[in-house]
């Protein structure tokens, strides 16, 4: 599409380019603490993008995305530690594990017509089962956790994801950018339009020749595989995995909150949401510490109220609102 210099599409491209440049330059400008927060924003944006493909595009609400995160993390980490197979290969195994798990969920859901909230409950059940299963799987450390060795001589083996903060920062940036790219390409494709049609009205989509079950499986597979890649990153970045953390329901909710606050079904919603919520959470911890308010649950309480405020002010998400204000709205939105 040709766009005049002042058109929303062109303005959006410029805004995205500036934002990208700022992120590329960030490690040379900000300190380590701020950099670690931006890294978390980027990972949140990436995982939100993966969840958004399933819910925002295809209309399937997963409340158990931690399942794919955990399977990806454990899959690649176990291959590396137990068999010496690096994550460059392990990431494919991780994706395959997540896709296989999502296939079982999808098969149960679609075969037995478990729809709407009942599908969501199914996703929780699987994530919780995995948490309990891994808690008791001694070979992978059980509840005590699984640890990746951190050896000085491995440092610089980037193909094994052994590197410093700069390395992991740029890797997160690459993931977030890649996630956006994949999401944008899929949304513009025939498959993406089949997803949107299914989200809007599955019966009408079917009557127009859309193979609804196949398209839903594709959304599940893409979303699960992308989330598993995020899990591999988390394992090699943190060097430890605990079933109680990685498979936790709270983790699934964290993945969802970004796109929900940013704008479900939009391309930039997951990014905006993550860059809003992660710093908000961090700032809140600092503020409460400064105030001496370290009562348990205080952060969750304030965070909850802030979320309610944001959602009440921008019910369809912050990004659509922001895009209107900055005149960045594209044709489609």
């Amino acid at each position: 599409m040709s766009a005049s210099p002042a058109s929303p599409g062109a303005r959006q491209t410029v805004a995205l380019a500036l934002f990208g440049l700022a992120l590329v330059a960030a490690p040379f400008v900000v300190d380590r603490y701020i950099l670690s927060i931006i890294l978390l924003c980027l990972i949140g944006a990436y995982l939100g993008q993966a969840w958004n493909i399933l819910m925002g595009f295809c209309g399937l609400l997963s409340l158990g995305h931690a399942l794919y995160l955990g399977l990806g993390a454990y899959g690649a980490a176990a291959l590396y530690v137990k068999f010496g197979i690096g994550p460059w290969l392990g990431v494919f195994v991780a994706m395959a594990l997540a896709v296989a798990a999502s296939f079982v969920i999808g098969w149960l859901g679609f075969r037995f017509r478990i729809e709407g909230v009942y599908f969501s409950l199914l996703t929780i059940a699987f994530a919780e089962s995995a948490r309990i299963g891994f808690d008791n799987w001694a070979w992978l450390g059980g509840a005590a956790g699984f640890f990746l060795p951190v050896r000085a001589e491995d440092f610089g083996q980037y193909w094994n994801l052994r590197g410093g903060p700069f390395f992991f920062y740029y890797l997160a940036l690459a993931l977030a950018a890649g996630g956006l790219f994949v999401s944008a390409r899929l949304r513009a494709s025939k498959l993406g339009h089949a997803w949107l049609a299914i989200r809007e009205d599955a019966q009408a989509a079917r009557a127009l020749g859309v193979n609804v079950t196949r398209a839903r499986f594709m959304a599940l597979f893409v979303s699960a595989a992308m989330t598993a890649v995020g899990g591999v990153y988390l394992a090699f970045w943190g060097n430890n995995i605990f079933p109680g953390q990685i498979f936790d329901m709270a983790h699934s909710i964290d993945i969802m909150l970004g796109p929900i606050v940013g704008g479900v079904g939009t391309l930039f919603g997951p990014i905006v949401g993550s860059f809003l919520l992660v710093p908000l959470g961090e700032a809140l911890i600092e503020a409460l510490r400064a105030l001496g308010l370290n009562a348990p649950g205080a952060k969750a309480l304030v965070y909850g109220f802030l979320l309610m405020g944001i959602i009440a002010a921008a019910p369809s998400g912050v990004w659509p609102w922001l895009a209107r204000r900055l005149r960045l709205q594209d044709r489609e939105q």
Partner: protein
Amino acid sequence: MSAVAQPLLAVRNATKRFRGLTAVSDVSFAVMPAEIFAVIGPNGAGKTTLFNLIAGAFALDEGEIHFDGRRIDGQSPDKICEQGIARTFQIVKPFPELSVRDNVAIGAMLRAPDMDSARAAADEILRKLDLFDKRGQKAASLTLPDRKRLEVARALATRPRLILLDEVMAGLRPTETDHMVAALRDINRAEQLAIVMIEHVMRAVMALAERVHVLHHGASIAEGPPQEVTRDARVIESYLGLKAAH
């Protein structure tokens, strides 16, 4: 059309029961290629159920449905659409958050290699149905007559050989009805598209249909050219009997 010509659509002894209620009972009819065929009958006669059987939304309890010589009953709605039968819904089902253009492009996707060609095909159909100027609007913002038109446009976009139109004239003003009639006749002639329409608007039935099939309480009571059928005593009774009850 010769006497031995093969029908495009053949419904044979179709029966559908819902918990003891027989919604469609032993209904048979055939539609020839490029024919315009109407199914009429009072409310609750089983017309929409019949459409759902043909389109694959419901499974038959008895009988068979053949399209272009192949048996299609038991297939899923998307497979049936792929073979060349499109349908509209009586209670319109737009994709509300998507643009008018994307609504139609999703229909066109079925026979288009990519979205660009699907959108080009959609634009062509939108022009025919006077929706081109509204292509950028969200479907949710359309008025009911426009939604009816969108429903038809979307179904046409799948490039069917037979289209099932479920009360697409309802709620249209007479001039809008005439416009839709003209558009349908054009497409029928230009593309040899067979049309099966459920319709209460007799103005449209008389103008378009070559043959009319009348259902009452799920059963066939008459079939023939519209002028004959509307004079049939049983048909008049089925309608007037119901009207008198109101």
